[in-house]
Each structure stands twice: as structure tokens, then as C-alpha cells.
């Protein structure tokens, strides 16, 4: 979160907030026609095109098939979710102007904004939303990540043209957070045949062209629903040109030679010196947490598993004592961001500041415990994904630390398909990994900690009945303070049982020219948040 966001504070609870927005939405519903008539008022002074240098390129154009983890792919600007979030990570109206849940938290009703359109002129109505949700749930189409956010969804019904109801299998207080942009991106049902070549969404920018590994061009969507405080339509920009430049050094050079106006992923090694040496000439935008890095143990089999080793818990504790978090903070992240003791960072309203920490760094204790534990000399395989430098560099460091504590560890780096294969076969002992940010804590705990969640089963296999009960109870708890306490208790249990050891909040530094104004990235990147990001940016001409 940026500084301004922190100042605002996170006092309001979601329930209060919901009430507020519902009232507001009521007002919006009264006057869509009027709004429409005087709409399309543009701030003529603001415009321009941003050339955006990104580390990665999208892999495809169909928003339901592809996982837009890298939300800074310019293509992410094409789509929008049912709901947006604001700078404080609160959920705010998007395509849906208001929403509410039934008392039992099993039915969620979304009232759509009138006048919202897809880029091809189709109306974003209840049928379109239903069609989108159903398409995402189709295992032949929806990406697993996206699909998993809807795993609770039993069916979608259309009440009227602008009212859509989601009926859940299990009660969930967090379902609305799953309706935000990424995971749920809406595309025009009429464009389904061209989804892979000419995507049509309802986001702030329209698709113009995409050349893989080269360029993607987007132009302003004139009929985007959002307006600024003066009633001018957003976005201001005439267009965005995406320029994927994989090599960190080249991307940074491109910014400094005025080939691009904005870049993502300034390498951690460069971040402090760039801010120091170039802070006057360039804007830097710290995005403090886009995810949380951790190392997970394989609890399904091997020396860290209770099944195969009665001393597994002691061995995991020994490993935890061997890990020097400060070293990871300094050597991998170059003092950017913060050490993680739970999944949510202090910039999130769900930060569990009272959770008990993992065992602290104590190499002697680590050695002693490892020696005492059964299988302390067993061979241990550490794996890391090759696509994210911080993951494999953390793995490298953890490997060295465990070696120092006498563990017989080896380290391997693999591309995603191989990592998947190793998860499926349980052919690893420690996984240096990370998870991208989930707006609502249920998104993390229900999907990656709950013992019945597919990801839990596949990756670490953690099972603690107490934790499961807490997760399920928190899911239906409406009081935010109580809920936070439950999650704090869960983090304490995790840091004691050690199915995984949180290591670091993953920071991201973006940098741009001084010509770029009104820009501030959200935690998921530059695009989808209400009243911010590239929606409110403009360029000097």
C-alpha cells in the first residue's frame, strides 16, 4: 500500500461499508438515464499514451483461460470484475453497484450498474454475468486458479436484467471478495468466438493488437462506467502500449532512455540505488506486498511428514531455527519490504500482529534438534520454481542455511510443469514458494491451509482439526474483529505446527517518468482499482 493509503486508515468494517455502498448504489440506480445523458464528459486536458515496460507478457488473450497473476500485463486492463477494491483494499462497487448476502451467507445478490457496456456495445447484464461465471466453472475452459475461487458456487440465477444471484454450497462471508477483478473477469458473451484473437471485455481499455513478446496496444474505452470526482469519464489516457522486456537491466535502461514511460519489477538489487540516484528524475511506486513468500514442507511423505517420521515436528522446528529471516531480507530483497510472520502484511486490514512468531534463528539449537530427531540425516530435496527469481534465490539461501545446520539437503530449480509433477508425486521435501495476494483471508486459508482444499492436499498436506474448525468458523463470522482474531489464532497454530514457514512479503517497485501524473499502483498492479492506477493517470504532452 502506498503512503496515502496508509494514512486513511482502515477503520471501517466491511459490514458498515456494505451498508454505505448499498445506500449509495440506490442513488445510482435512480438516475442512470440522467447520468448517461450528461455522461461522456471528458477532461480534455488529460490524455496521452503510456508505454509500459513489463517483465512478462501475457500468454493468451482469453481472460478465463489465462491466469493473470502478472496483473501488470497490459492485457489485464481489458477486463473488469463484478466488484472493485479501493486503495485500502476494501471491496467497493464495480460493475455491481451494490450487493448483499442472505443471513445464512449462502446466497449473494448483486445488483448491477446500469449503463455498463462491453467494448463491443453489449450491455453488461445479469445474463452476461451468469454466462461468464458458468464459463469460468467449465473445467475445459476456466483456469484452475480462477475456478478455485468459485469452488463454493453451486449455481447462478438471474432475477431480472440487472440482478444476479449466486447460490453457494457452503456459507461464506468472503464470497464477495471472489467477485473482484482477477479472479473473475468479465468478457462479452457475444465475443466468445474471438476470445483468443480479439478479446472483448468491460475494462477501462479496449484491445487493439497483441504481438507476443513484442507489443500490445490498448486504447481508451470511451464508455467505461467510472467517472472522476468532477464527473469526467475515466480513464484519461488515450491508450496504453505494453512492451514486455524480460531482462531487468534492459527494462530499466529502456526507462532511462525514454523508450518506455513506466516499468514494473525494478530488480531488488537495483531498487535502493535507483531510488537514491534517480529518485529526482523518476517517480518510484512501491507496491509493498503483491504476495507472501514461504517455504512449505512436504507433510505427505518423507522426513518432515508425521506419517513417516515420529520426530517430523521436531525436525521442522530444527529447520525453522536454522532459517535466518534477516538474511533473506537483506540478501534477496535488498532490504525492501518486510519479513513475514503471517500471510498478511501490516498494510492489509487483515494483518495478524498478535500471532506468535515462528521459531527464531538459532543455529546451535537447530543443529542440536536435528541431531536428536529421527531421520535428521535423511536426504532432503528443496525445490523452487524458475519463473520467480526471489523464489529460487530464497531457496538457494534456505538450502545453505539448512546445510549449515547439518541437513543433508540438495536444491533444484524447475519450470512450472515439473514443479506440478513433483507436487502431484510428493517428490520433494521443501518447496520455496509464494502465494499471490488474496483480498480476503478466506482466499488464503480456505484454499491453501484448510486440509480438504485441493491445493493443501497437493502441496503440503497439512491437517490440524483445530485449524480447520477455525477456518470454517471464520468463513461465516460476520464480525470483523472476531474474524481477525480467529485468523490470528490460525497463524499462531501454523507457526507452531510449521507446515510452512512464512519468510517475506514480496514487494514490487514500479518506476515511471515524471511526465506521468495521477498514477498510483494498487497491490495487484496498475489497473483495476477504483479511482486509481492507470484509470486516473495521464501524460504530459
Amino acid at each position, binding site marked *: 500500500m502506498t503512503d496515502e493509503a496508509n494514512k486513511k486508515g482502515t477503520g471501517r468494517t466491511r459490514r458498515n461499508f456494505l451498508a454505505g455502498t448499498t445506500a449509495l448504489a440506490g442513488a445510482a440506480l435512480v438516475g442512470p438515464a440522467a447520468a448517461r445523458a450528461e455522461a461522456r464528459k471528458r477532461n480534455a486536458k488529460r490524455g496521452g499514451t503510456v508505454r509500459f515496460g513489463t517483465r512478462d507478457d501475457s*500468454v493468451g488473450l482469453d481472460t478465463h483461460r489465462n491466469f493473470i497473476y502478472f496483473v501488470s500485463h497490459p492485457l489485464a486492463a481489458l477486463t473488469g470484475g463484478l466488484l472493485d477494491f479501493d486503495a485500502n483494499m476494501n471491496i467497493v462497487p464495480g460493475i455491481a453497484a451494490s450487493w448483499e448476502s442472505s443471513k445464512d451467507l449462502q446466497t449473494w445478490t448483486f445488483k448491477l450498474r446500469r449503463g455498463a457496456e462491453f467494448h463491443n456495445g453489449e450491455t453488461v447484464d445479469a445474463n452476461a454475468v451468469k454466462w461468464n461465471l458458468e464459463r469460468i466453472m467449465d473445467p475445459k475452459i476456466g*483456469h484452475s486458479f480462477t475456478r478455485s475461487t468459485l469452488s463454493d458456487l453451486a449455481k447462478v440465477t438471474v432475477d431480472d436484467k440487472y440482478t444476479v444471484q449466486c447460490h453457494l454450497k457452503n456459507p461464506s462471508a468472503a464470497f464477495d471478495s471472489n467477485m473482484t477483478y482477477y479472479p473473475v473477469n468479465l468478457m462479452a458473451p457475444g465475443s466468445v468466438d474471438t476470445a483468443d484473437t480479439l478479446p472483448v471485455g468491460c475494462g477501462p481499455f479496449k484491445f487493439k493488437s497483441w504481438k507476443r513478446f513484442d507489443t500490445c496496444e490498448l486504447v481508451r474505452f470511451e464508455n467505461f462506467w467510472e467517472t472522476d470526482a468532477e464527473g469526467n469519464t475515466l480513464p484519461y489516457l488515450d491508450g496504453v502500449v505494453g512492451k514486455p522486456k524480460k531482462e531487468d537491466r534492459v527494462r530499466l535502461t529502456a526507462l532511462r532512455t525514454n523508450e518506455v514511460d513506466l516499468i514494473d519489477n525494478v530488480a531488488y538489487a537495483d531498487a535502493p540505488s535507483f531510488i537514491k540516484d534517480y529518485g529526482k528524475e523518476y517517480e518510484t511506486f512501491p507496491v509493498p506486498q503483491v504476495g507472501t513468500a514461504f517455504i512449505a514442507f512436504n507433510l505427505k511423505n518423507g522426513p518432515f511428514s508425521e506419517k513417516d517420521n515420529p520426530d517430523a515436528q521436531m525436525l521442522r522446528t530444527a529447520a525453522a531455527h536454522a532459517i535466518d529471516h534477516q538474511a533473506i531480507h537483506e540478501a534477496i530483497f535488498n532490504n525492501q519490504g518486510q519479513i513475514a510472520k503471517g500471510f498478511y502484511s501490516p498494510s492489509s486490514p487483515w494483518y495478524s500482529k498478535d500471532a506468535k512468531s515462528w521459531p527464531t534463528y538459532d543455529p546451535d539449537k537447530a543443529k542440536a534438534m536435528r541431531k536428536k530427531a529421527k531421520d535428521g540425516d535423511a536426504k532432503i530435496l528443496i525445490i523452487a520454481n524458475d519463473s520467480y527469481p526471489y523464489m529460487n534465490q530464497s531457496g538457494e539461501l534456505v538450502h545453505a542455511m539448512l546445510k549449515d545446520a547439518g541437513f543433508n539437503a540438495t536444491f533444484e530449480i524447475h519450470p512450472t*510443469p515439473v514443479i506440478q509433477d513433483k507436487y502431484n508425486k510428493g517428490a520433494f521435501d521443501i518447496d520455496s514458494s509464494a502465494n499471490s495476494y488474496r483480498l480476503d483471508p478466506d482466499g488464503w486459508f480456505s484454499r491453501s491451509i484448510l486440509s480438504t482444499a485441493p491445493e493443501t492436499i497437493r502441496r503440503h498436506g497439512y491437517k490440524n482439526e483445530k485449524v480447520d474448525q477455525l477456518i470454517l468458523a471464520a468463513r461465516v463470522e460476520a464480525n470483523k474483529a472476531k474474524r481477525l482474531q480467529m485468523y490470528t489464532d490460525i497463524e499462531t497454530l501454523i507457526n507452531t505446527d510449521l507446515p510452512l514457514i512464512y519468510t517475506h512479503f514480496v514487494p514490487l517497485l514500479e518506476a515511471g517518468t515524471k511526465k506521468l501524473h495521477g498514477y498510483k499502483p494498487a497491490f495487484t498492479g496498475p489497473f483495476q482499482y477504483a479511482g486509481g492506477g492507470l484509470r486516473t493517470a495521464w501524460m504530459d504532452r
Partner: protein
Amino acid sequence: MLAYIIRRIAQLVPVLLVLTIVVFGFVELLPGNIIDTLIGTEGIDDPEVRKILEKEYGFDQPIYVRYVKWLYRAVQGEFGISLVTRRPVSLELLTGIPATVYLALVGITLSMLIAVPLGTIAAVRRNTAVDYTAQVTSLAGISIPEFWFAILCVLLFSLYLGWLPSSGYISPFDDFWGSLKFLILPAAAVGFRQAAFTTRLTRSSMLDEMSKEYVDTARSLGLSERKVIFKYTLRNAMIPTITISGLQLANLLGGTVVLESIFAWPGIGRAIFEAILQRDYPLVQAGVLVLGVIVVVMNLLVDLTYSYLNPRVKLR
């Protein structure tokens, strides 16, 4: 001659068959496949879903059936759809191959511009300091890890000197002169590397030519040394240099992966490399096949050109 060409073309068929079988086999043996990726870590590993997906992507059939089916379609020019981008593979090839060919072609041309003068002067001043300097210079180019060299070039020419853009690509068909600006750095990186080989070749074929009788005859007729070298020897010595450059060109089509990645050049090498990592079988297979065809056809053309330019070489 015609019979020779026909026989050579007939020989290409088994070569390409071997190529495709090897690729198919390799890709099959790679652990982890697209189905696992589609199911992902968060999806429920439901056997039903897996079956649906396997059927959707054709993995329910044994490998030889898939191979024959693929081959049957490939022969007709149908390469299917990329499993990752879901666009036609032919589209990916049509964007990637021209970019790489453009880079390789200009790179080779640059390498000739460096190598021919260097090789000639090395031959003419054989075993002198000039010769050694020329040889070491050309060898230096091939001794530097290319990604390091490329990044150093970017830092020097873009960042510090500000002469050239750091990276990017403009298609020469869209804007020829505009595209050159982006081409210079990567092409120079290609050229500098290839120059080592070409210099050596030029030097030795110059030495070859210079030892021939006609050179002595020309000299005895009172022609100036300069004229002898430029008018006769160099011209003949260029024959192997030019033809070998054809082979280098073909080989470069899959050899610029690293440079494409650094210079954000949307070439076919990088596309195939990413496809290998993502297990995007149709793109890997089609890409290697098409590049393989280009390589073998280039080889054939080189042989024919060589025999045309140098009639003493008999084609059998």
C-alpha cells in the same frame, strides 16, 4: 544435375521424419504436461475432469496415433492451435520466423563486413603482427558469453552513449528505416560472434587461392599486387565464404534465443524455447519442423550454389 536435385530432395524426407520423431519423442518424455498445468495446484484433481481434458487435447490416444495424426495434418500445412496462446500455430510461426530471419540475415551480413577485410588482410600479411591481431580479434568475438556481451552493449550504447534504443522490434515490412535503429545492437551482437568463423574461412581460402598458379601468372604479367588480390584471388576466395554463410544463416535461426530474450526481439527461437518450458507441444513440433525444413533446404541450396560457382566440384 536435375537428377541430383531430385535425389537430394527425396533424401530430405527421411531426414525430416527423423527430426519430427525425435522432437515428438523428446517432448513426450518431458515430465509434467499441459494437463497438469491446466488442472493447476488449486484445481481439484478429479479423474473425470482429467479425462475430459485429456480427450480435449488428444492425450487419450497412444503416442504413435497422435504422431501419425499430427504428421498427416502437418504435411497439409495444418499445425493446429497452440495449447498456450490458443492461437493458430501458423500465426505464431508467421510472426516469429520473419523476425528471426531478419535478425540472422543482417547479422550474417555484418559478420561478412567484419570478417572479409579481416580475413583478407590476415592472409595477405600472413604470420605478421597484423595477421595475429586480426585472428585474435575475430576469436575474441566468439569467446564472450553472448548474454553478457549483449547486456554490456546495451549499457554502453543505450545508457551511457545514448546512441541506440536498448531493445524492441519494428517489423521491416511496417517501417524499414525505423526498424534498422532497433536492429543494429542485436545484429551487431550476432555479427560479432559469427565473424570469427568467417574470418578464419576467408583467411584460409585466400591462402589457398594465393598459392595457385594463375596468381603467379598474373603477377608475372606485371599486374599490381592490389589488383591481383582484389580482382582475382578475393573473388574466388569468397565462394566458400559466401556459401558457408548460408549454412550459418540456417543454423542461426534457432541460435538467437538468448539475444531475442535480451533485446525483446519477438523471434521464433524464444517462442520455441518458451513452448518447451510450457509443454506447448504443437508449437514446439511445428516450430522445429519448419526451421528444420529451412535448414535442409538451405544446405541443399548451398551445395548447388557451390557447385555452380565452382564447377570443379562434382555433385554425386
